[in-house]
Structure formats: C-alpha cells, structure tokens
C-alpha cells in the first residue's frame, strides 16, 4: 500500500510522471470507483461503495484469486469533468475495472471512454437508457436498471388498475424524460392516455404552479419521476396541496427511496415500482441485510444492493476467465449466461448488458417500501439502438 501511495503522490503532485513498474508477484486487481463524494448524490455514492466492498469482503478480499485494490475518484456528479475523472482512473491509476456512477450524464461520459479504451465498466446506478442502448459495448455492464424499466412496469400496473387519464410530471432532463417515456409506452399499450406531460427545469423544486395545473386537469392519477431532495419536496408539496387524497400519486421507486425519513407521513400509502423493496423476505436478501447492518451499522438501500451486485457481476466474469481480464469476450459471455444471485432476487443479463429483472410494486408503510407484488416479471429493457 505504501508503495502504491508513493506512486500516487508522485503522479498527483508532479502531474503524473510515468509510474515505476510495481514489483509484485501476484498482481492485484485494481478497481476504480468513480462515485460522487460531494454534492447532492454523495449519500448514494457511499451506499454503492459500501455494498461493493461488502461483497468483496465476504469473498475474503479476493475475487477469482486476485486481491482487490480500490482507487477512488470523486466525480462530483459533474458531466463536464467526467472525461477527466475517468482518464485519471484509466491513465493515472491504470485500473483494471471501472465502477460508476450515479449521475446519468457522468455515466454516459464514462461509457464513452470505456468503449474507446476497452476498459471494463460496470454501472451501479445511472439509469440512462443509452448506456445499454446506443452506447452498449461488450465491456460495458449495468447492475442496476434502465430508466425505462420502472416506468414501463408502472405503466402496466396503472393500466391494469383501470386508470384512463394520467398526468406525468418530472424534471426536464434525460432520466425524467426516459422514465416518462417508458411509462407512457406501457400505459398507452394498456389503453390509457397521458393527458398532460408536465416538467420543470432540473433541479428546480418550486412545484406549486404545476400542482395547481394538476388540480385543474383533474386526471385519474399522476405518474412522477423525482429523486433525492426534489422527491422529498414533491411528495410533501403534493400532500400539502391536498392532492394526495383526491388524485393518487404513483412514481418510479426513487421517489421514496432513501427519502422516507424526510418525507414522513406524507409518503404513506404511495405506490412505486423498482427492482428492490424493503422486506422482500428472500433468504438471500435477509442475509445481505444482516451482513450490511453488521458492517456499517445502518440499513442498506437499493443503492447498496446495486453496488453489491456490481461486485457479484465482476466476480462472475472474473471467475470464468480465471482472473485474466484480457479475455474480454469470455468475460462477457460468462456474465451474459450467468444468473446473478442478487438480494433483489436472482436476475440475468440481457444481450445489451442490462439486468433482466423483476420490477416490484411497493407501497410505503411506516417508513418502509413494503413489497406488494411483482409489477412486471423478468422485465428486459428493449436495448433500443444497441448494435453489438
């Protein structure tokens, strides 16, 4: 570690003089964690990292016989710095695997560099459809979801519930648009219509005007995509405006994930769709939750699961190639064939490398996203635009 640190110091301070070759017999596997450590998504970054580390620790710090060494970069959730930050991991730290990130724009930049350099990339959150769509590549994997998935599942659910006219509301940015698009696709297929698509600039949180619009439109229900601070405020404002009683609110799961403590009673009863839920009751999940709670003294969330599964996917592929990452085709083939034994329930990986997974319908009860049922069984992202 000391030697490694010295190299890093030299690299960082002198501006990156060529790293002297490390004289080591069994080369460690370098995992570059590019996650947000500052800003709005900082907490998510921490959860993902902890999940990833938990799995590695469970395997005794080694995957496929290779010791794992972590290198971290704070991506600040700033896409304009993304290329730089990825390059830092690839060129300065010579990582073997990239893991990141939360913000879709940053993940897109990472995918681009990964595609160009051939470095293995596992995306543990960012749902941008394009990562496993037009940007897809043999060396790019995702352990989380595509924005399309929870939206599509909710579209099915709401159509089945018999809603006809729905208003959607989201931030005007890629994730929101994609989620709403997925929702609309399934909902209209099920015979419903989207009466109005409301949006406001990201990351504005002044919802009052749009809530008034919703009240005026009097739809059967509302579908929404918000996350983090915006999700908290939206749910509270929605309830305070009295709409919760008259117009049911549905959303992609991020609306109520990691935010329930802040949302309090205003979130009670809300239905959301996601690939994870509290109290799934699966033995795999129970074991994971116990281990996580023991290690970090707090309950895991969906982000921790995604981090954990990113490590599992890496382990699967590594095992197949016996730790030799240069065999990229074999690595990809192994992961594509595998069933990942995730706390969320086992899932497989699609041709475009997105999880094919059950999307759950959950309802908020007492600060938990309680499982109601499976909204969509083994839902696969269509991977539109993926040509490899």
């Amino acid at each position, binding site marked *: 570690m000391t030697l490694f640190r010295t190299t890093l110091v030299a690299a*960082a*301070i002198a*501006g990156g003089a*060529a*790293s002297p070759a490390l004289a080591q017999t069994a080369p460690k596997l370098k995992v570059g964690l590019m996650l947000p450590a500052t800003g709005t998504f900082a907490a998510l970054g921490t959860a993902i990292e902890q999940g990833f580390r938990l799995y590695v620790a469970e395997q005794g710090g080694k995957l496929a016989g290779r010791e794992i060494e972590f*290198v971290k970069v704070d991506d600040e959730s700033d896409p304009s710095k993304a*290329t730089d930050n990825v390059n*830092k991991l690839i060129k300065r730290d010579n990582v073997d695997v990239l893991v990141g990130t939360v913000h879709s*724009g940053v993940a897109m930049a990472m995918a681009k560099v990964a595609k160009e350099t051939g470095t293995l990339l596992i995306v543990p959150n960012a749902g941008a459809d*394009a990562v496993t769509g037009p940007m897809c590549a043999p060396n790019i994997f995702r352990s989380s979801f595509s924005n399309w998935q929870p939206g599509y599942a909710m579209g099915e659910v709401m159509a089945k519930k018999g809603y006809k006219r729905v208003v959607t509301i989201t931030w005007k940015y890629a994730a929101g648009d994609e989620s709403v698009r997925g929702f609309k696709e399934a909902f209209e297929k099920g015979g419903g219509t989207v009466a109005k698509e409301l949006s406001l600039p990201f990351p504005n949180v002044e919802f009052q005007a749009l809530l008034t619009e919703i009240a005026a439109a009097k739809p059967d229900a509302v579908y929404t995509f918000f996350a983090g601070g915006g999700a908290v405020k939206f749910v509270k404002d929605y309830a305070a405006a009295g709409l919760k009683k008259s117009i049911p609110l549905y959303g992609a799961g991020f609306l109520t994930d990691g935010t329930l403590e802040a949302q309090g009673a205003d979130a009670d009863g809300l239905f959301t769709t996601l690939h994870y839920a509290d109290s799934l009751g699966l033995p795999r999940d129970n074991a994971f939750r116990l281990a996580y709670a023991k290690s970090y003294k707090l309950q895991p969330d969906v982000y921790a699961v995604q981090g954990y599964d990113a490590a599992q996917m890496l382990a699967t592929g590594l095992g197949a190639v016996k730790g030799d990452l240069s065999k990229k085709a074999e690595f990809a083939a192994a992961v594509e064939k595998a069933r990942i034994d995730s706390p969320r329930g086992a899932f497989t990986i699609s041709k475009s490398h997105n999880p094919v997974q059950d999307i759950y319908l959950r309802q908020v009860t007492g600060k938990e996203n309680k499982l109601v049922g499976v909204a969509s069984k083994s839902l696969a992202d269509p991977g539109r635009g993926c040509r490899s």
Partner: protein
Amino acid sequence: MAMERSKFLFTTVAFAALALYPFAAGSFGIDLVTKIMVYAVFALSLELLVGTTGLVCFGQAAFFGIGAYATVLLSSPTDSPSLAWLLPACVLAAAAYALFVGALTLRTKGVYFIMVTLAFAQMAYYVVHDTPLGGGTDGIYLTVKPVLGGLLDLDKPLALYGFTLGALVAVFGFLALLGRSRFGRALAGIRVNEQRMRATGFSTYPYKLAAFVISGGIAGLAGFLFAVKDGFVNPELMSWHLSGAVLIMIILGGLGHLRGALIGAFAFALLQELFKSEAIFGDFAKHWQLGLGLTIIASVALLPRGIVGVPRQWRERLVGRRIATTEVRHELAGPPPRVNFRVRSAEVPNELA
C-alpha cells in the same frame, strides 16, 4: 529593468518546461497538463477583460461552451474535419456571441455588468440544456477528432498536447503584444478610470467592445480545445460554476498579470488534485473541498496580490520600512489593478449626492 527581465525569464522557463514535460511524463500527466493548459487559455481570455480592462465578466463560460459546442456541431460524425476551417469557425462563433452580448451589456457598469453577463450566459446555458439542439442534458459527442492534412492528428494525445501548448503560447504572446500596444494601454487606462479616458478623448465603448469580442474568441478557442480533448460537450460547460471557477483562477494567480492567469490555472487545478489525492489524505480525500476552501481563504488573507505578488511581498518584507512606507502612500492613491464594484452615482453631481 530587472522586473521586466524576471518576468520574461519566468515566462520563458515556464513555457520551456511545458515543452519538455511530455518527455518525462506518462499519459495521465500529459492529459492532466493538457487540460490545465486549456484552462490557462480560458483564464487568459478572462484576464484580458478583468485584469486588463477592468470588466468583470461572470458569463465567460458561455463563450467557452459555444466554442466547444460549435466544434462538435460543425464536425461530421464520420470524417475528420480540417482544423484549417473548424478552429476559425469555432472562434468566430464564440466571438459573434460575444459581439452580441458585449454590444448590449457594455452599457451597464460595475455589479450590473457582472450580472448581465451572467444573465446572457444563463440564457445560452438554458438553450442547450432545454432544447434538442445540443443534445439536451446528455450533451453530445465528438466522434472524429479534427486533423490538419497529414500533419497533425488531434486524436493523438501528444499532438493535442503540442497543439494546446502552441495555442497557449500564441494567446499569451498575442495578449502580451496587445498589452504593450496603444490599444492595450487604452484598455489599461479604462480599467483604472474610464471617465478620465473619456475626458481625454477616448471613445471608450468601441475599445471595451473590441476587448470583449477578442476575449470571447479566445474563450471559444479554449472551448474548441476542450471539446477536442474530451470528445464530449455538455451544458455544464456553460454553467455559472465554470464562469466562477475561471474567475477564481485569475484572482488566485494575481489580477493584472498575464502570468497570473497562467499560474492561477495551474495552482487551482493542482490544488484540487492534491486535496483529492487519496494517497495523501486517505479517506479524508472525499472532503477535498474543505482543503481547497481553506487554502483559498488563507491565500486571500496572506496573498493580497495573488500568487504573482508573492515575490514582491517578500521583497518588501525583507527590504523593510522604506519601501513599506512608500507602499502605504501608494495604497492611499489607489492600488493598481483595483476593480471596484461599488456603485457610483456618476450622473448625480457631488452637490446633491
């Protein structure tokens, strides 16, 4: 003059070091320094406005972003565009927006100028952010990098490094030439006291506008280099955060000196690298902003003239009282590169104010 010679020496040594650096560096180092040099070009563009002319522009990122977006939007997705027309086109695009913004904003003064330039930058930001023109929040990619015939392929990191260094030296040289010329002296006069310049017979508006356009063009050049280097543009390139960061760079380096912009860009970027370094700070590296923030605060407290002013500060401390007293008088007369925001009621005569 000793001062002139030491300035010249510093610049020569700095550029020589940059030219020799690739021989000693790995690919990451080359990448990092390329990036910093792009920021240095960007910082120089703002230095012309803030340090030389006294116009504090808080929307410089717009020109940077327009240069970058133009690079991507104008090049074809399959064939390598030629530098020969792409580069001038990007610079012109940024300069054209600067002409538009400058023509309108230069009517305002002081803080209002700062805020109107911000407003125009935010407009550009929201146009690329909210319309499909530039790919929205996702941004767009530059798939094929520009070339210059068979001479130069900017897809190669070393070629890009050399080209960026060349651009930096050219901009530095151009601004140095400008600074010594009659045009540059007039800008310096406008910075200190625009009213006096008008009373002397200078129609100051065209001078300021010209400076604004030149500055916008240089920022566009920096944007071009950035887009080519990263191959990816995004609305964040036009955000006020970047406008703020580049302002911080030139203040940190020392206003009123071209070297200041250069030093500031390097200092700001390297300080970030330092505090983000896990090797030094371990797990605390995730709180890198704390270190950066404290360093900035300390530099304000201890380095009133920026990093450029450090030698002079030391000299004064060593030589002692004699210079110190003249310095006090000097301060009373108003220190040289002073940019004040205080709104002066210029039209109201003293009798009534």
